[in-house]
């Protein structure tokens, strides 16, 4: 599989690259946001948007993903970017959470996940559904209802997330179901 990982000047990108490589048995091609071009999408089978500093609006190049039919996974900032590509919005958390764990439920199972974020998805885009939210109602996992797009607010690649592989499997299983 030709997998394309866009690095938003983040410090967890290679953790994500190793996790993807471990689960999907392929080495993602890591390209920094500053070098990212539309042509990169031509040959690839799936795109992963890394976490990173700042707000979605500071990353205007992702506009081109709106019309892209490739499966896309966004982590943290990546999820917020995907949500804003449609009609969702992002806001500042009252109490930011950095380097701490939270308990969430997905597909009827409980997971411990690592959170690193000051911003959150305050309005979920209308064609997205919330797959998981935490006790305070903050969206932790979202997906597009009829496109292969999945986002995680937490960090599956962190050492504090108990079953990081599960979330990568989850996303890529969604992609398979939707593209069939």
């Amino acid at each position: 599989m030709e997998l394309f990982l866009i690095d938003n000047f983040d410090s967890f990108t290679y953790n994500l690259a190793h996790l993807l490589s471990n689960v999907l048995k392929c080495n993602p091609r890591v390209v920094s946001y500053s070098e990212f071009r539309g042509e990169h999408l031509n040959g690839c089978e799936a795109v992963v948007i890394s976490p990173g500093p700042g707000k979605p609006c500071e990353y205007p190049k992702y506009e081109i993903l709106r019309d892209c039919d490739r499966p896309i996974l966004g982590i943290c900032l990546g999820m917020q970017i995907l949500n804003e590509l449609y009609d969702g919005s992002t806001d500042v958390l009252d109490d930011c959470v950095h380097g701490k764990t939270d308990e969430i439920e997905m597909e009827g199972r409980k997971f411990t996940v690592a959170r690193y974020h000051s911003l959150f998805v305050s309005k979920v885009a209308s064609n997205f559904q919330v797959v998981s939210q935490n006790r305070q109602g903050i969206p932790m996992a979202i997906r597009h209802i009829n496109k292969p797009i999945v986002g995680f607010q937490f960090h599956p690649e962190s050492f504090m997330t108990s079953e990081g592989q599960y979330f990568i499997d989850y996303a890529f299983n969604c992609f398979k179901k939707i593209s069939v």
Partner: protein
Amino acid sequence: MPLTVSKKSAFEIFNKASLLAAEKNGADLYLSAPGFPASGKSYLTLEPDKEYLVTEQTTRDDLTNFAFADDKPTFGYLTYNYGKLINGLKLKNSTSFPLGHLKKYRIVIEYDPESQSVDFNSTEAGNLWYDLTEKIALADKPENRIELSDISVSVSREEYIEKVRRTINYIREGYIYQLNLSIKYDVHLIDSGAYAVFAQLWQNYPAPFYAYLKSDKYQILSTSPERFLAVKDGRVLSQPIKGTLAFSQYYPEMKKILTDSPKESAELSMIIDMVRNDISRNCRVRSVEVSRHKSVFTVDELLQMYSDIKGQLAEKATVIDLLIDAFPGASITGCPKLKAMELIDEIEPHERDVYCGSFFIIKDHKNMESSVAIRTGYYNIRDNRLSFFAGSGIVADSKPEAEYSETMAKAEKFINLGRL
């Protein structure tokens, strides 16, 4: 040719010989005090026969070519400033401090704490050793009175508190999770040089990563407790320190106070994820793991928390690839690294120079030891001024006054030099 000396005193003799060689022969020292989780070998080195001064043009290939040109070990350092350049930032002030310095010495005397033996790289080194051991018996107890004057700081208490608030705003706005903020201190040394300072610190504040070396017009003194990257036959170990508790009297419950603190734990966890990232670039998939999470040790009257991050160096990667791609260390920048470094540049008025860089001993492609150059300073031989630095990690729930106290506690061993 290893020489085993009386076990009890082996380190003591090496220690005295090293100080004497630094004082009388101009030796460079890389010393590791025993009794710490990261304690290791110590080196007394003399007469570099090959040197490489790092410049703005220096590339990874230049460092690689110098280090691996022959079988001799490479000793030296890279500065935080060099770390800025390789991460796309500019140097703000015209700093005259070298960007880094690599040396291969003609004379290397190595102390191995495991076998408690001393090893020489040549007959000449052996002769020097015998000469030094004879002299230490006769040497007078060094007169170490140090007087400091004209202490100045790059950031006053009021400014520091404002800078912490500014940092917390950047954190709340989502630009960073953590930022390591530092203060630079400058003092004038009256009637004593760098050697007296080094000897006094080494004797009173033992730590596993001391370094004393001459570089251009500077005598550098590093008294770091922190390992950056150790590589043994391709097995990588990093031990970032985050989470500090200062004390004047130790009591056992303090350890739990530190490890149970959500703030200190989060600080460490962030840096662990960063170090995993930083070494993953040159480690095999599935090899990177965290162990001994939230271990604690004591240094400089501070409890310090750390964890082990291990990995297996990828086949094509060398220790220099690992060092450069992870440089500067995660624990002294903040997270994410690039944004944190940009903001440090904006918030701190001083250049860090060698502080927060790294000292290293590179043996070959797959073997290296290195430190994070915290608790580090330098003495300008031309104007008798000693500069040193201290800092702490700022996170969302940091209290500005508490961070200031932590920074001062870390600088204390330098500030107190004149009082011992």
